[in-house]
């Protein structure tokens, strides 16, 4: 073994970048959720638009979705993927300079991107609103991320690639494919491009992208987080390895087909819609297999619940994951979709997943991760518990108010009177929604307060220290010789 190789193999993990991504993720969470709360408030009191273009509901909502998905969500995913890929490979991150470039590029893209959205640069497609200069920059940054992540895996000292890395890997590969294809457009000016696909074709491509942004970013990536951090927190192995393999491939295969359930009873072909229904139902199986795997793993670690506030978040995250991945396929059924499409029910469903699953598992992971990065215990277990109850209450209130609103909305929209005319005017129904919007605002405020408490707690945990340096374990030579050499 050369001196350089030995140095490379024993170099400490690059964890400062994990701290950096975690910190930014929390900042974007607060900003993105504040934008969400403001948007919710504008629906209750439209005076809050103040006649200003950059404060108007349409632009604020767009800033909200982009900040929470690509600021909060992606920063958390990249950060945790760097933490876990090093430790499951027993090797320092590949090309740390490239990883740091990804960090700075990504944060800059979010800052400038959010600014551009408020200024009105808008591609017009949901969760792909950023215009073409950002699309290109994101693609380059994402490719660099892929190189760092897979490069680390290629250098690993353990032969089998651990399952969390398959999921993070699926996030990287599939989101790249979706992003590039859906954003294909011809630029006209710096801030305006026109989609390559027109009309109904564009709809199909958009929801192939949109649903799988949910599938691979919000599900796949966060499952990667779950599969690494849950066993670590629970100090238990994953309950069933075989189940996780089957679930993974079934998940990667099925999710892609589910997009058209966003387009039921629209002008796209029936066969595409029907495939969307069937595969959405098929998708129940791998989703729930994963949930069961998680629940059974946690149930072996119940003693830790007494002392570890983070584990409570993981448990409820799994509950909401189960709920959201059950409700989704149900809503994909045509006759249910007739009642749910275009209503608040869809919004409730989105947030049961986004708040109940994505946010909660990220919170649990951060409560585990930050003390370890700081080399100190969590500043306040009490604050973490308060956060838990705020997050849970906020999520449940959001879902319940939107279920009630959505069902009323569709019932009233579809009602005819005895003469066969539409019974309720659109305005009548809109007025009926007002009190539910108020409840939803309250739910969002509770959730945001909880998130702020977490930020304070983690900031105090990290006050005055630097990221702890951890070296990978040095394995016995025979083990190393047996494992290194497969790339």
């Amino acid at each position, binding site marked *: 073994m050369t001196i350089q190789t030995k140095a490379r193999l024993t170099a400490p993990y690059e964890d400062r970048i994990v701290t950096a991504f975690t910190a930014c993720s929390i900042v974007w969470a607060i900003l993105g959720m504040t934008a969400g709360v403001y948007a919710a408030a504008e629906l209750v009191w439209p005076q809050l638009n103040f006649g200003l273009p950059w404060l108007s509901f349409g632009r604020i909502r767009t800033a909200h979705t982009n900040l929470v998905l690509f600021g909060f969500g992606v920063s958390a995913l990249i950060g945790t993927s760097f933490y876990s890929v090093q430790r499951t490979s027993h090797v320092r991150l590949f090309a740390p300079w490239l990883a740091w470039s990804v960090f700075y590029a990504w944060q800059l893209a979010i800052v400038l991107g959010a600014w551009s959205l408020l200024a009105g640069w808008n591609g017009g497609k949901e969760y792909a609103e950023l215009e073409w200069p950002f699309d290109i920059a994101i693609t380059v940054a994402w490719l660099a991320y892929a190189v760092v992540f897979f490069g680390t895996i290629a250098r690993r000292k353990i032969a089998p690639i651990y399952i969390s890395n398959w999921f993070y890997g699926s996030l990287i590969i599939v989101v790249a494919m979706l992003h590039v294809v859906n954003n294909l457009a011809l630029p006209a*000016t710096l801030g305006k491009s026109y989609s390559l696909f*027109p009309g109904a074709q564009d709809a199909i491509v958009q929801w192939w992208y949109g649903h799988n942004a949910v599938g691979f970013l919000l599900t796949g990536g966060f499952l990667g987080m779950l599969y690494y951090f849950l066993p670590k927190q629970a100090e238990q192995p994953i309950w069933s390895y075989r189940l996780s393999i089957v679930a993974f491939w079934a998940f990667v*295969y099925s999710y892609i087909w589910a997009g058209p359930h966003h387009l039921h009873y629209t002008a796209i072909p029936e066969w595409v819609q029907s495939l969307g229904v069937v595969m959405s139902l098929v998708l129940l199986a791998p989703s729930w297999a994963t949930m069961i795997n998680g629940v059974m793993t946690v149930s072996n670690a119940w003693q830790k619940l007494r002392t570890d506030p983070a584990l409570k978040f993981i448990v409820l995250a799994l509950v909401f994951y189960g709920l959201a991945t059950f409700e989704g396929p149900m809503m994909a059924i045509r006759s249910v979709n007739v009642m749910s499409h275009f209503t608040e029910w869809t919004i409730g469903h989105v947030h049961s997943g986004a708040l109940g699953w994505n946010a909660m598992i990220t919170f649990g992971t951060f409560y585990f991760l930050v003390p370890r990065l700081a080399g100190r215990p969590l500043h306040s277990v009490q604050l973490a518990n308060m956060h838990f109850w705020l997050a849970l209450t906020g999520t449940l209130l959001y879902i319940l108010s939107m279920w009630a609103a959505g069902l009323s909305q569709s019932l009233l*929209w579809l009602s005819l009177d005895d003469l066969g005319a539409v019974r309720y005017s659109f305005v009548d129904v809109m007025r009926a929604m007002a009190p539910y919007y108020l409840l939803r605002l309250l739910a969002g405020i509770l959730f945001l307060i909880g998130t702020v408490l977490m930020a304070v707690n983690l900031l105090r945990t990290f006050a005055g220290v630097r990221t702890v340096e951890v070296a990978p374990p040095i394995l016995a030579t025979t083990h190393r010789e047996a494992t290194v050499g497969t790339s």
Partner: protein
Amino acid sequence: MSFLGVHKAIERNTGLLIFGILIVASIGGLVQVLPSVWDDSLSTPAANVVPYPPLELVGRDIYIRESCSTCHSQQVRPLLAEVKRYGEYARAGEFAYDRPFLWGSKRTGPDLLRVGGKYTDAWHRIHMIDPQAVVPASIMPPYPWLAERQADAGDIQTRLRTLRTLGHPYSDEVIDSAPAALEGKTELDAMIAYLQGLGRFAGGPDEHAEH
């Protein structure tokens, strides 16, 4: 080799894992999305459909800029109550020149696919600047700046040419006279022109008669 055996090989090889994921994740798109993209019926304009004239195009681009699709859909479903409320249900051929599509996924406000001609220009003018003046219970934001800004004639020709490259049949005359068509028009004029044009493509043939 058994499934688990194959998997054991994949999980020890980064390249195999990457390609495995890529291939498995591509299948759905290849079967479901690609044929639709190649399906001409989905992008062939219905008989009466024309590309948006310059003023309406500017209006449409403003609609996108202000994220109107966040609250307003443009997709009437073939459901009895919906057709009674909004008008003819949507057919694919109407949207051949919609880049991007603006079907929306939420109705905080009403569907706009057939809104053309339902209200006067004057109504729209007041409504866009102060929605509560014409609909007291409305929660729509006001858009007063549309009346204050001139419709941008600077890049209209670039936009039209870009769309022509993508297949919209704009003639040279239309492109050359586009800046003149926008002369003295505000963004509000453009938006109203766009809204008043929505729905005129209804009544085309229905390629998907299975509805």
